[in-house]
């Protein structure tokens, strides 16, 4: 049991590093697409260090104070509840703690915490952003739930390990190929979940300065930053487990999560931004219709 905690710590640190790196790569790719050189891929590490060592910080109240912890906890929790490597007792983390439903609900934990803290700052933009985020969440969760429920019913399990196990045995056992429409719906939902363009209205950096964390600075911000990175990695791993057949070793995990990451980066860089209601309507139409094809197939079967 105790070694699990140690490994969990390692996975957290690793996840943080990986997440920051992916962020850096994303910035680099964006820059290259713009025709710039862009920052180094380690820019996010530097930013994090800077933020950690800012000399002053302000707090608006208790919830404001606690929110970064919630955020971090939410991120770490999601990462630790999904098995990263199939079959590995170590890298399956704490996935005995709960199944897919638990993870889905736990994902909200951090977001809610952050939103509360942000709102406690008394800044109107901080409160506006979560409302957008929640609305958009109501948008993308519908196709995502379609794919999740479809997969759960198809494989008769909601355990993530169980889902991964069901996809073993070659690339064509992956859900991406077994249930392509469900996977497409799920992956489109993933775009929304990462709040990247075209669904970035939540974090719109200029109109509502970076959304919820408007008032956050220094150490608070660094915690949120790292929480967000870890959360991102956790979600990649989750999607990998759901659609790409999981991973049997760490390298495979890296490759597959990176592939998912690339999807997001490329989509992000070529699309303008949706307004909230446009995003919601988009999610409730195309991906839902696509997802329902397989969903009904499974329902009839």
């Amino acid at each position, binding site marked *: 049991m105790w070694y699990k905690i140690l490994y969990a710590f390692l996975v957290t640190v690793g996840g943080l590093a990986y997440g920051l790196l992916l962020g850096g790569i994303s910035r680099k790719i964006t820059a290259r697409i713009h025709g710039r050189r862009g920052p180094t891929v380690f820019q996010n590490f530097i930013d994090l260090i800077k933020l950690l060592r800012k000399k002053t910080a*302000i707090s*608006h109240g208790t919830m404001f104070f606690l929110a970064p*912890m919630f955020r971090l906890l939410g991120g770490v929790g999601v990462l*630790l509840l999904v098995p990263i490597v199939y079959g590995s007792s170590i890298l399956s983390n704490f996935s005995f703690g709960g199944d897919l439903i*638990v993870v889905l609900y736990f994902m909200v934990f951090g977001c809610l915490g952050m939103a509360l803290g942000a709102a406690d700052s008394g800044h109107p933009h901080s409160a506006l952003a979560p409302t957008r985020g929640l609305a958009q969440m109501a948008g993308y969760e519908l196709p995502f739930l379609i794919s999740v429920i479809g997969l759960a019913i198809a494989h008769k399990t*909601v355990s993530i390990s169980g889902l991964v196990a069901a996809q073993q045995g070659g690339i064509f056992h992956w859900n991406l190929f077994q249930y392509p429409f469900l996977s497409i719906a799920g992956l489109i939902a993933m775009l929304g979940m990462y709040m990247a363009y075209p669904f970035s209205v939540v974090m719109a950096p200029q109109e509502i300065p970076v959304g919820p964390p408007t008032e956050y600075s220094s150490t608070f911000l660094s915690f949120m930053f790292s929480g967000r990175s870890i959360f991102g990695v956790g979600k990649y791993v989750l999607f990998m487990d759901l659609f790409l057949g999981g991973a049997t070793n760490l390298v495979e995990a890296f490759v597959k999560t990176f592939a998912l990451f690339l999807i997001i980066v490329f989509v992000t860089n070529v699309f303008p931004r949706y307004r909230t209601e446009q995003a919601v309507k988009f999610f409730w139409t195309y991906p839902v219709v696509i997802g329902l094809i397989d*969903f009904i197939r499974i329902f009839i079967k």
Partner: protein
Amino acid sequence: MVNPVVIIAITLIAAFSIGIFQFLGKKFVRGVFWLTVLFDFAAILSIAYGFLTKAIKNPIMVKIGGFPPPIGINLYVDQLSAYLGVVVFFIGAMAAYHWLSRGINDPEPKALVLLLLLLLGSTGMIFTQDFFNLFVFIEITSIASYGLVASNLDSFSLEASFKYIVIGSISSTFVLLGAVLLYKFAGSLNMADISAHINSSMYSGGMLIIISIMFLFGLLIELEVFPMNGWALDIYQGANPAVVAILAGGIVKGFYLVFLRSANYLKFPHLLKIGIIFGLSTYIVSQFFAWKQKDIRRLFGYSSVGQLGLLILAGAFYLNGNLHGFAKKYMLFAIIFFVLNHSFSKSTLFFLADLFGRRRIEEWKGVLSKNKLFGFLFSTSVLSMAGAPPFLGFWAKLFFILAIPKEYFYIVALVLIGAIAEILYYFNLYRIISEKEDGIFDYKGSIVPSLFNVFVLLGLSAFGAYKFFILTGLDIQSGKFLAFITISSVAVFVLGVSRLAQWILSLGMIGALGFHVIKNTSLVPAFNIQSFFVYLVLAGAIMFVFATYPLSKKYSAVFYPLFVFTVFSMVGISVSSNWITLFIFWELMSWSSYLLINQGGKKAAWIYLVMSAIGGYGMLAGIKLLSTGPNLIPSFSSSSAFAVSAWAGILIFTAFLVKMGTAPLHIWARDAYGESPDGFTPLLSGVLSKMGVFGGILTIVYLLPHLSHSDTILYGLAWFGALTALFMALLAIFQEDVKKVLAYSSISQVGYILIGLALATSLGYSAALYHTVNHLIFKGLLFVAAAGIIYRTGTSYLPEMGGLIRRMPFTFLAFLMGIITLAGIPPLSGFAGKWLLYSALLEKRWMFILLIAMFASIVAFMYCYKLLHTIFLGQLRDKYRKTKELPLPLVIVELVLAGLTFAVGIKPNLILSFSEKAIKSLGFTSPGYAYESAHRIVSKFGYWNAYFMGVFAVGSFIIALILFFFAKAKIRKVGQLDIGYSGEVPDSPESVHFGYDLYAHMRRAVRVFIYPHVENTYKRIYNSLMAFVDYTRRFYTGDLNTYALWVVITLSFIFYILYKGVF
């Protein structure tokens, strides 16, 4: 016992002697009058008492002139006529007292003579056994009424009187013709003698049927049946209410008895047909026409006419409905109770209408609050009239519905629809009356007669309940419990001199009952589904009643009695053992909660009541469908003995769906939750809506397996639950009132429970029961907190709040935990319910429902956040700078509940161990899930370790906190306006608080879903019905010729349907 003829003789002599006494002064006249009335009353009472105690066994037969019956006239006093005589004289005395206190216009002795002779006429009418003598007494009654009706001498009363004279003359012409032709036909005028001459085969020829029709038709006109009752309504509207009280309360009942008796003596074979056609149409039409009334007296008039229609229907069934055994007895008691109820409560209403004197309903606004006694009398009468338990009208209606044969189910349905319509307009009136309104209230006259009436009514109600439980042979335990409920709430009212005393008493009583339940297992023998709900109710109630004290100062004195009443009737529901008992307690709960809600939002309460009535009467109709042959009282288990149509299940379920607020029946919920007294809302949401769940479980377990299409029904229910969960959550997002958000949230959550029930698997029940308890915990918490916040801030409007975390940290903590539980986020108790439900749905492969249910919970996050943000976060307003933390009892309740969510979240067994027992009592062997290790719960599809999740969440939170303290910079806590604001300084908290219409963007996306389709549909139906009624009620043109014409048309119609004859 007094010879009945003496009553008549003495009355006559007194009436004649007033002609002399009037010269001695008013006092002498009054003395003679009162002496006579008292003597008569005592005399009839002695006879009635004789019948009641069985001292007189056979009907009294009095020969007049010393000749045996067919030769001479004779009086025939049986049980019913004696009782009716008592009622007539009582009401007459009360009306006379009332009229005297109001002041009779000048030739008072004459008016008293008319009154005396009116009473005499009606007594003679119900005593005589001779058709022609009957005619004479009818005429005495009529002519006295003509004069009395005109007694106000204004254009209204004169017009009414003239209409009455013309129609009455036509009516008596037919009675006279009928009587004489009967003599011609049978050679006798004595009823019994004629009856002996007649057998039903004679009706195949044309003669007897036409004669009988003519005779009975004359009486039917007097019985104010549709479409010949325009004159009656005009009397109710136009005449002196004191007179109307006697007419409606006594005289018409005499006509009714005479009609039934004549029909019986004539062996009229088509009585049932006539009763159904005219009784039912009168009932329905008048109940609907009353909707649009602006004049309160005419409204009461419509109600009276409707009741008469019901009576005719009941009488026709009693005599001619081929009832057997118990059914016949029930019907008899239904008739008696209807008559008593209508006499006492309607005359009270007319007295009160006269005392206050205003005609237009709008002018009655606020009357209830201005004079408590007046309000009490009015409320009691209206409640009894509308058939609210435990008043007499309820038992009458119940007996009636039970007694009607199942083949005539459409009558049950129509009568119940009429009853709903009745509730609709009566309580629309009550709504107006109970509104708050400033102004002076004064009335002229004495309130004593109304007081007497109501006391008699209350006594009779108790008698009715006693008779009901004795006659139906229901478990006496329930009857005793009903008495206990009533007595205890009255005790809270009487002994509670102050709110504090009431609070302590209520706490004590609920606590005592709880203690009794735990100690004494006679109420709940083994732990089963029923005791599950008993504990639920009592635990919730004691918590919520504890929280109410700080709020109670602004509540009226009936708050705690009604609270106790509601709680105990819910306990009654939980321990009931058959459908009828369930229905009785169900209605008790509905009505008492209606009265409680009415302390707050009047319109909301009205809608709640109407929806409850639809549900409750739907349930009664369903129960009616369940009853078979001699078994009029279907018990839970007996319903499994045979197959019944699916409608029984659906109808019974309607009641539960209404209370649960399931989608198309939810329209009451928002406003009822939102506007009910804050102290009551937690109970309403946390416990009362759970009674729907209890009923649902009973229905699904005991009833549904035996219905046809049970699978379809269940699947349909699941869809209703899912759509409710989704759309109510969507609607909750856009509410701007804290209690209305919670209201929608509440019904959305109950939608989940409904899904769990509809699954009908053990896992589904586990989910439902778990969520039931859990919802009680967190929604109670939220509503208690909301109540406290409203108490402190004085508003429930969300954009008005904000930033209260700084003032109410404990409340915030509790509220936050409540919200996390509501959202179902893992470490707290909310998640377990979600997980169980989803697992159950997965198990059953109800994918679409699962999808909708999960999606609904995502949507729920939006309002969760909204609540937290707009109340507690954001900017604190200046006006709340001095606001304090909630009062101690509220904080205690909040924190206890918050602690519970945490405890249950880490250890769901706290609830699951109970629900498992309850589920096993339903006949399942396992709860549908298993414990893999101590804390790891496993279903077929997934697993989940609550303990680990809790420890993990708390632990990592602490670790993160520690990490933070290592890394932290110099942190300064800044002021609330120290925000980055483009270099500007905000001038006030309000200007930078984001609290209104948080989801404007979302609204643009879901506009079509949140448009109040259902509510508008109801409104449209109501409005079109209103418009239809408003148009059709012009049927009563007020034109005398038309009224007379309708009499002739009706006669030809009756001839046509009963005797094809020449055509």
